């Protein structure tokens, strides 16, 4: 891959309104000699200024996918396929061709693509002040900037995300911040270079419900102010409904259903999506009614058979079809895709 990059810089192109496009992305993780097929050929498209939700149970590969986009998966991960990304200057790059921690990729990270994490408390090192760690992102990408410039910019950003007394906060250590404050700080830091793409990996899961709402509001506000796309990873369908325009449902390293929020929520096609929606608690539901739980557990993605990944847990599983063949992707309505044998040509 290294040589490929050096020798022939392929020219790629993306439609005007598309910022990121992943095609047949596969990520394998080597653990204890076994190979885990964490991501098994997904196609994904993210438009400018759009929020795309990536939902699924834990272990479905959504986190790996997002980290692959920003190139921070550990070294035991290898990937194939392509992730095309349109830079600020309009050139289109295949991110997978870049050296993972090479200069080119680093120039993009934190500058054009940024990421915020599930646990803000661990996203900062406890040994340095928040200001020190936040300023870094300015200093890395703007070598001409002085520490003073960086501090000014960071304080401005801190104000933007609603941190009170930013001058004092600047010199404090992470342990002096609350979780919500840290997430705000993280967002402020990550957005300070005004990236085109923000990857949010369950940014509110570890926070209290009230703080959650604040952070989500903040993100929405910033998105409109700064004009960026968000790849929002979560397992919480409620948040998806409020944040996203389009949703991709992932299961076992595959995208099983893809469509607009409306399409997915009102017309779920894939049995798995249906199950997910049924397992959401509803305020209006009968108290006696038990929450729906999907039977079984997610299988470990090692040496998977040629079959639908969900067939073992699927209530509508068709013997001889679902456990024998890999279902194709069907566009059931415009912009609404599903990977299930229940639909499509085979039906007829």
């Amino acid at each position, binding site marked *: 891959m290294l040589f490929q990059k050096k020798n022939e810089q392929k020219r790629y192109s993306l439609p005007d309104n598309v910022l990121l496009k992943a095609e047949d992305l596969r990520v394998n993780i080597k653990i204890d000699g076994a190979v885990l097929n964490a991501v098994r050929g997904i196609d994904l498209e993210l438009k400018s200024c759009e929020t795309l939700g990536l939902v699924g149970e834990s272990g479905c590969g959504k986190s790996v996918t997002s980290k692959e986009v920003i190139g921070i998966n550990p070294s035991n991960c290898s990937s194939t396929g392509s992730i095309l990304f349109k830079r600020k200057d309009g050139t289109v790059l295949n991110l997978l061709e870049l050296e993972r921690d090479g200069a080119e990729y*680093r120039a993009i990270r934190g500058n054009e693509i940024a990421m915020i994490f599930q646990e803000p408390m661990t996203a900062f090192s406890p040994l340095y002040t928040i200001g020190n760690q936040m300023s*870094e992102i300015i200093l890395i990408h703007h070598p001409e900037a002085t520490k003073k410039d960086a501090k000014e910019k960071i304080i401005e950003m801190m104000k933007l995300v609603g941190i009170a007394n930013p001058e004092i906060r600047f010199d404090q250590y992470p*342990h002096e911040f609350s979780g919500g404050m840290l997430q705000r700080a993280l967002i402020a830091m990550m957005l300070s270079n005004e990236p085109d793409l923000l990857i949010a990996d369950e940014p509110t899961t570890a926070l209290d419900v009230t703080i959650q709402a604040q952070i989500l509001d903040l993100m929405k506000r910033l998105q409109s102010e700064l004009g960026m796309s968000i790849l929002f990873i979560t397992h919480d369908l409620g948040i998806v409904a409020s944040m996203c325009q389009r949703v991709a449902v992932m299961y076992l390293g595959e995208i099983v259903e893809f469509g607009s929020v409306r399409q997915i929520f009102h017309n779920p096609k894939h049995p798995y999506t249906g199950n997910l929606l049924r397992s959401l608690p509803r305020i209006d539901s009968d108290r006696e009614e038990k929450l729906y739980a999907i039977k079984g557990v997610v299988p470990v993605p090692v040496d998977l058979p040629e079959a639908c990944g969900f067939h073992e847990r699927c209530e509508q599983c068709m013997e001889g079809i679902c456990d024998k063949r890999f279902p194709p992707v069907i566009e059931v309505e415009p912009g609404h895709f599903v990977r299930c044998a229940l639909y499509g040509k085979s039906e007829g």
Partner: protein
Amino acid sequence: MKSEFLRFVIKKFLIMVLTVFLISLAVFYIITLPPGDFLTNYVGQLQAAGESVSQETIDKLKAVYGLDQPFIVQYWKWVTNIVFHGDFGYSFLWKMPVTSVIQAYIVPTIVLSLVTMLFTYLISIPIGIYSAVHQYSLGDYLFTSIGFIGMAVPNFLLGIILMFIAFKLTGDTMLGFFSAKYQTAPWSLEKFIDLLKHCIIPILVIGLMNTCGLMRTMRSQMLDELSKNYTLAARAKGLKMRVIRYKYCVRAAINPIAASIGWSLVNIFTGTTIVAIVLNLPSMGRVMYDALLDQDMYLAGSWLFLMAIMTVIGTFLSDILLAWLDPRARKEYIQG
């Protein structure tokens, strides 16, 4: 911020004083453990040398050491003598005050201990980092195996084996601190080089056990830090791997090791004691060993006391170092 730090130091210091007090009690108890008190031995020795000791003299000596009084009074005399007169008692093996004996040996002992400590940390930290960064590489396996060997071979035996190897290679056994030629010669570059040569085996032997432990700790700490979330965040910022490793991971991984510097003195003192006996080094270890064989308890006890105190002081210093390095430490501590 400053006052917080000062409060931390003062609180730690007070605790150290308390600890030293408790240690002194324990040590004095040990001194009085063996059968036959100090005076009986002392008088017995004078008599063995042909001295007739009158009851008057015995009574006088009893009063000096408070031997006819309860433990706590005796202890008090011992402690006040140390604190106010720097008098640790009398070594009847050496026929001189314990202080003089200790003075004669403490410098080489401390120098050896400190050099060993320096060696231990200078070797183990870089190797630990290397092993963690290059996990499962050939070098990692090599250092890990050396580490295991160091832990599994008792250090006295390692000393003898190294001595044997030295003898086979150089024809000299490298005992003591100097060769015969330089033993009494004035200081010169050659003598210093000779000293360094003679220090290799002791440092290796004393340090290896510690080094191996530290190496493994550093490696696992470093692996731990490398897998922490903040490294992901730092990478996501676009920070270079090298900066992440050294600015963040190494700093964080070193903290618990810095906190253990004081405690590592305990192992080093044990090491120097054994090595001094095996390799014939003029350090307190040997003196202590001889003192114990001869039940010269004031000498042995005093040295034990000093070692414990040095450890406590070392711990105090490393606590302060940790608090200085890690802002969380002092906060947690002050909050209880």
